[in-house]
């Protein structure tokens, strides 16, 4: 027999000003199964909660309805109070008499009647509530960080420094990411390599970090605290333990004309190569797409010259399976490349380059050892034009967003140019200067005021070649949209930051959502910017949207803390408001008929197959089963299930049906 207690709160006068709380308590007190009913000035106060706890014990209540404010406000408070009095917290429901009644209606009989109805609905519901236990799942305290750029490096180090194991997976042969390509960084103009390489080395040497370069995530199963990841370690064609990194092979490789990715195509590399001198690990890989041996079946020069016999031409890819508890995605970004800008002749004219190519030109370790030289003829450009917003903020090109980093790096580029070519002229076409950030605007002002960079507010319509010069046609909107034509030696396009190739595929493998630009999506734009919609998977850096280094590093540390917080518990507890598929006795096992349409509506891949087998292993029936670790309790599967075999704790078919009947019928 249900014994329900009802506690009507006045909330000072917030409720009692329009609702006759005494009448509500008195009326529902007469209802069947209501063993106790009272009203009180402040239910959430200490004496109020004590009143509830005492009543639960004294009247041996089997369920309570606290009729007060919104459950979104105080449900945890009252459920905790119920638990303290020995009543399962899920046998406490709240009727929303404040936000949904007293505050929105005038003082009259109808308002009090509505309040009574709201309480009645929940009395009927709580009668059929079940006592639920929190779901506990164990946690594997190893993190996976995907991507070895600055965000991934920072996250991996931060997690490792909390004492937990980290697996860092990087798809290229070295960690370092785009930051390792940069010359100097804004707003301090310190050398990128100088601040990055110590971190890279720390990753390699950290006892808690296992580094897999030249490796990619193959697939992911499981749920928060309990993922299983398959990692494909692509064949490097060398035996790393024997390789000393002497580099002899790379100098002797006869294939020397492969466009160097690290140098953004401005230099060449051999087929067996280390991407850049400071690479971590500093051991070469063979690029099988370009290696003569793999293409033509003979060569093996590297094998001949290798002093430690470390070359392995027949090495296969290796797929390893690892159990992990959390994931940080830090796969970074890319920039728009040629053919997206036919009007600028990008890809057609050698001296129209993008921002990353300029970084390599300006880098002391770059193809020109830091001298700013035209890619076409190696001459020093006397007149250089920088085009900001090349692609960004251009809905016509499908990129409506601001790439965020270009204003700053364009100012930096212009400054670096002026520092190296004192007599040269630098022009910047811009839409707006977005330099919000610590010491950022000062930096841009320095470029304009101290280095005399010519900032022109307007867009470039076209760039074409005439007599070996690049004619840049634009407009100066601050001079009444006056056309501007600059005869330039070189043009640098600050092309839009875009999602990395393969981001969409990875998002699908990891079951996280992504936006229309294929950037990974955060769980909440403001309050959960580091989380994804999949519990246990976090974001760091520019894989979410273009970000500069400090932002990427901050977010990486944020993600690391989220992981550390998760790993600080020996097991996870979750609200048990999850779906479940019924089970019956054999030979039916469940009323589920196994159509698995529920599987297709589930946003969390929480629905699995369960086979019932005979003793000799023959499958009798396959039915759906909910993985409690993954289910978030939306209940879409419940409403879809035709045979009503799935139900949801807390919002069961019986409960919601009962609420409808109670609400509409007289008492």
């Amino acid at each position: 027999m249900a014994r329900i207690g009802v506690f009507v709160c006045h909330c000072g006068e917030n409720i009692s000003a329009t609702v006759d709380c005494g009448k509500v308590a008195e009326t529902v007190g007469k209802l069947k199964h209501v063993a106790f009913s009272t009203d009180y000035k402040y239910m959430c106060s200490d004496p109020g909660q004590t009143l509830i706890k005492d009543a639960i014990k004294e009247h041996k209540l089997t369920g309570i309805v606290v009729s007060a404010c919104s459950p979104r406000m105080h449900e945890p408070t009252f459920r905790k109070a119920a638990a303290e009095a020995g009543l399962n917290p899920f046998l406490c429901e709240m009727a929303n008499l404040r936000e949904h009644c007293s505050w929105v209606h005038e003082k009259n009989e109808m308002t009090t009647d509505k309040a009574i109805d709201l309480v009645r609905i929940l009395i009927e519901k709580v009668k059929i509530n079940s006592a639920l236990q929190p779901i506990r799942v164990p946690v594997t305290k190893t993190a996976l960080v995907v991507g070895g750029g600055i965000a991934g490096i920072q996250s991996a180090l931060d997690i490792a420094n909390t004492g937990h194991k980290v697996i860092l997976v990087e798809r290229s042969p070295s960690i370092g990411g785009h930051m390792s390509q940069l010359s100097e960084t804004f707003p301090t103009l310190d050398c990128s390599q100088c601040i990055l390489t110590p971190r890279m080395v720390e990753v390699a040497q950290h006892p808690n970090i296992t580094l897999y370069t030249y490796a990619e995530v193959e697939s992911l199963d499981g749920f928060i605290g309990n993922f299983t990841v398959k990692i494909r370690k692509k064949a490097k064609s060398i035996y790393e333990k024997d390789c000393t990194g002497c580099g002899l092979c790379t100098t002797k490789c006869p294939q020397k004309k492969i466009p160097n990715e690290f140098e953004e195509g401005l230099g060449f590399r051999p087929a067996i190569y280390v991407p850049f001198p400071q690479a971590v690990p500093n051991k070469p890989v063979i690029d099988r797409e370009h290696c003569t041996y793999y293409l033509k079946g003979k060569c093996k020069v590297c094998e001949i010259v290798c002093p430690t016999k470390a070359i392995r031409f027949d090495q296969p890819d290796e797929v390893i399976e690892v159990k992990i508890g959390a994931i940080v995605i830090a796969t970074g970004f890319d920039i728009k490349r040629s053919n997206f800008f036919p009007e600028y002749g990008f890809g057609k004219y050698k001296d129209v380059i993008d921002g990353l190519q300029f970084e390599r030109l300006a880098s002391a370790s770059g193809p020109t050892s830091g001298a700013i030289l035209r890619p076409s003829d190696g001459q020093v450009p006397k007149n250089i034009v920088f085009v900001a917003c090349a692609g960004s903020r251009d809905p016509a090109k499908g990129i409506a967003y601001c790439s965020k980093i270009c204003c700053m790096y364009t100012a930096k580029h212009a400054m670096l140019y002026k520092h190296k070519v004192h007599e040269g002229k630098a022009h910047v076409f811009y839409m707006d200067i977005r330099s919000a950030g610590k010491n950022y605007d000062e930096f841009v002002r320095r470029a304009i005021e101290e280095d005399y960079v010519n900032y022109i507010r307007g867009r470039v319509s076209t760039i074409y070649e005439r007599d070996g010069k690049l004619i840049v046609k634009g407009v100066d909107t601050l001079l009444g949209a006056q056309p501007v034509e600059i005869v330039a030696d070189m043009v640098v396009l600050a092309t839009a930051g875009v999602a990395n190739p393969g981001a969409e595929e990875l998002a699908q493998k990891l079951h996280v959502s992504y936006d229309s630009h294929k950037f990974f999506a955060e769980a909440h734009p403001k309050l959960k910017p580091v989380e994804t919609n999949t519990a246990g998977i976090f974001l760091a850096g520019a894989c979410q949207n273009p970000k500069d280094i400090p932002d990427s590093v901050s977010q990486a540390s944020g993600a690391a803390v989220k992981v550390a917080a998760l790993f600080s518990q020996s097991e996870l507890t979750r609200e048990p408001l999850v779906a479940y598929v019924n089970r019956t006795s054999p030979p039916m096992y469940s009323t589920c008929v196994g159509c698995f349409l529920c599987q297709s509506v589930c946003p969390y891949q929480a629905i699995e197959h369960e086979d019932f087998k005979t003793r000799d292993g023959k499958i009798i029936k396959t039915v759906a089963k909910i993985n409690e670790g993954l289910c978030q309790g939306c209940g879409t599967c419940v409403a879809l299930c035709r045979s009503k075999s799935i139900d949801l704790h807390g919002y069961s078919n019986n409960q919601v049906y009962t609420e409808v009947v109670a609400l509409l019928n007289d008492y």
Partner: protein
Amino acid sequence: MAEFEPKVVAFVCNWCTYAGADLTGTSRIKYASNVKIIRFPCTGRIDFMLLLKSFANGADGIIVSGCHPNDCHYTSGNFHAKRRWIMFKELMDFMGIDMNRITFSWVSAAEGARWAEVVNSTVDRIRKLGPYVSYKQMVNTTVEEEVINE
């Protein structure tokens, strides 16, 4: 005779419309007290049978409301609900069940004023339509048939 006071039941999701209705309260915006809310985790959870059961139990009007497309707390529950309501509405239209009595809406947690508008416009509309006599008659005749049979 007193003015007809329609009985309206609202099926709303916890994350958007329920929170939006909370905001209506915190903003002290007044609306008709005929509407009573039943809370669901998501519009995806709302079974179409509950709408039929509401009419069967004497509702004159129904509101179904959740998160705007792309805002679903569970990413896609509202999209599935949308398809369900499209099919349901077409079937109801085909069978002559009055879809003017059901308001489907998206009300976000920030749209407190909008929730009041949705409620008031629905109540006004149902008030003009009057009690859902034809459906009630069908249900009542059924009850009478049974009484006779017994």
